[in-house]
């Protein structure tokens, strides 16, 4: 009985200390942020409620140059245009309709700096390397532009693959700036697509390698951060990329596959160890009881 009382005291003090240095301290150091918003409510509907026409959108992309001059895109199995280094490597648009939220995509085409929440980067002059969409070059965002944006978004959605692997989503969403070298340590294929120098010039510093971000940041943090980088890093040069919840889940799953590749093995082996030591404990206590029986 006395031993149990002592044990209770030891456990209580241990738990209080643990609570103080872990949950409580982390709560104090990292105040909670609002949950991710996958509808991007802060962006107004640039399409003005217009219904997009995929065929018209296709025509704009295939025949026009506003997208193709800087972006590659695969239409009907044929690759058009090329990715170029403009600030950073421009994204291939083929998967855009699947991985980006469509309202965000529309808002981004209309005003990239605003949708990406990086207007602060251009306060002292300069402009986002992707110009605001202006289909008839009249210098304003009119109803004609709104319809064209709606058409392009409709086309991108219809032309996008129906599903992608986690790694493919990561490559399209993150890898233009970020390396994740543990994804292919020997081959080196998971380096960032943009050269170190260019991305450094454009972003101000080299974006971090994401190999261990699944460990250095909590999953919760990653979701909040990818959804809106400014929330955790006020003033960061990283743009909001507007991933859908499903695409973001895929990105973070990929980061876990690369950065915590033994998670499944760990979770599988753990219970076996515990069962082994449980059995060991039973025998240890029985042995103890046997030996001490003669002593009292």
């Amino acid at each position, binding site marked *: 009985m006395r031993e149990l009382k002592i044990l209770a005291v030891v456990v209580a003090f241990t738990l209080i200390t643990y609570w103080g240095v872990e949950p409580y301290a982390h709560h104090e150091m990292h105040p909670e942020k609002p949950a991710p918003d996958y509808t991007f409510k802060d962006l107004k509907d640039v399409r003005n409620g217009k219904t997009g026409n995929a065929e018209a959108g296709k025509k704009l992309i295939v025949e026009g140059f506003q997208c193709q001059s800087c972006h590659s895109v695969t239409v009907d199995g044929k690759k058009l245009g090329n990715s170029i280094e403009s600030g950073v490597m421009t994204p291939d648009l083929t998967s855009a309709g699947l991985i980006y939220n469509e309202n965000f995509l529309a808002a981004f085409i209309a005003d990239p700096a605003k949708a990406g929440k990086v207007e602060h980067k251009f306060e002292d002059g300069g402009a986002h390397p992707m110009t605001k969409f202006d289909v008839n070059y009249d210098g304003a965002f009119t109803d004609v532009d709104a319809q064209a944006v709606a058409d392009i978004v409709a086309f991108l959605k219809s032309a996008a693959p129906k599903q992608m692997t986690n790694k493919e989503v990561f490559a399209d969403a993150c890898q233009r700036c970020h390396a994740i070298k543990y994804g292919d340590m020997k081959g080196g294929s998971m380096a960032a697509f943009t050269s170190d120098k260019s991305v450094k010039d454009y972003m101000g510093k080299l974006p971090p390698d994401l*190999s261990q971000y699944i460990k250095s940041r909590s999953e919760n943090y990653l979701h909040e951060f990818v959804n809106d980088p400014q929330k955790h890093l006020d003033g960061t040069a990283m743009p909001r990329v507007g991933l859908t919840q499903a695409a973001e889940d895929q990105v973070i799953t990929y980061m876990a596959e690369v950065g915590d590749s033994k998670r499944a093995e760990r979770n599988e082996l753990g219970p076996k160890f515990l069962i082994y030591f449980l059995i*060991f404990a039973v025998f240890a206590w029985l042995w103890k009881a046997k030996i001490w029986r003669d002593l009292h």
Partner: protein
Amino acid sequence: MAKITKANSVGEWFDQRLNTTTFNKVMMTEYWIPKDINFLWAMGVVLAVTFKILVISGIFLLMYYKPDVNLAFDSVNYTIMQEVAYGWLFRHMHGVAASVIFLIIYIHMFTGIYYGSYKKGREMIWISGMLLFMTFSAEGFSGYMLPWGQMSYWAAMVITNLFGGIPVIGDALVVWIRGDFNVADATLTRFFMLHVFLLPLAIMGLIGLHFYTLRIPHVNTQTSEELDFDAEAEKYLSGDKKSAKVIPFWPVFLSKDFAVLSVFLIFYFYLVFFHFNFAMDPVNFDPADNMVTPAHIYPEWYFLWSYEVLRGFFFDIAGIKAFDLGLMAFGVANGIFLVLPFIDRDPDILPAYKRPRFHVWFWLLLIDLIVLTVYGKLPPEGMNSWVGFVAAVGFLLLFIALPFVTKADAKARGAV
């Protein structure tokens, strides 16, 4: 030369040459421990086993770890954690054991304080134990540097900087410790050497010394009863095990230790597999970067109380700079436990509940250390700084008060 005859068994062959029967008696079956003990007396064996886990897992890690600023991070987080079969298991076991061993050390230490097992002939047990605490601290600190993550780098930066506060030789000392003007490759390789060679060697030597110091004064009991070990041992050997107040180390004492150990191991392996972040700080999974200071720099949990004693003095007092005050307090905090046997002025060994004033002192100290630990991690702003200051001053006051508190207890009991 001893008389050697033809041996009838392997055991006898060794016995003739190594006197193993006597050795076994001295070390095991007739090494007498008091019977009146509780599970806290098992912490020594729990510590020995945890240290063994650290050595073995450390040997496996050592086969793949690369002590070089360009290679260290990846050798730990890629090679060991992802490539090597069960490398992750050894790293988790090593990291978690390194953290948990301090929990057990603190329990062991406070058991000693509570039952007064550090005086009246037991001073050397206490002192060798505190030397172990210090070498383990150095071992923990040097090991934390090896993955070369952000916290490795910045903790090394902050802690080595402290030596700069020492008068006259401070600046030179910092460079001497780092092997460079900055925390750099030379720092990593020397702390690697300390971690895998010199400090483990010192620890093993000190463990031997610590065990040896127990032989003459014997282990204390729950009630501090003074035993005639020879008479009690005779009773036990004659078969009167029930009334004998002693038990042999093997198998009786160890059977209880193993039972306690089994519970500890369940707890430990639960942490290894399912709850390891407390021992492997997420910040340290960012590679070291001398251009980016982490938002919050803090040591591992077991250093937080002394770190907060250092940080608690955040304003100048009487013309002495806050940094110097903190450093002096930090020096006191790290040395004061070593001299505990000499500032306790009560001549008798008694458990704390039989020393009313000391009893209060004991719980106040424990609470103060927990407050220091918790606030040692929190950002030092506003209210937090003041709580830290009060707790740091409280810590110093408690030790200033100890000689008077213990003396008063002795007087009230009529012992002096």
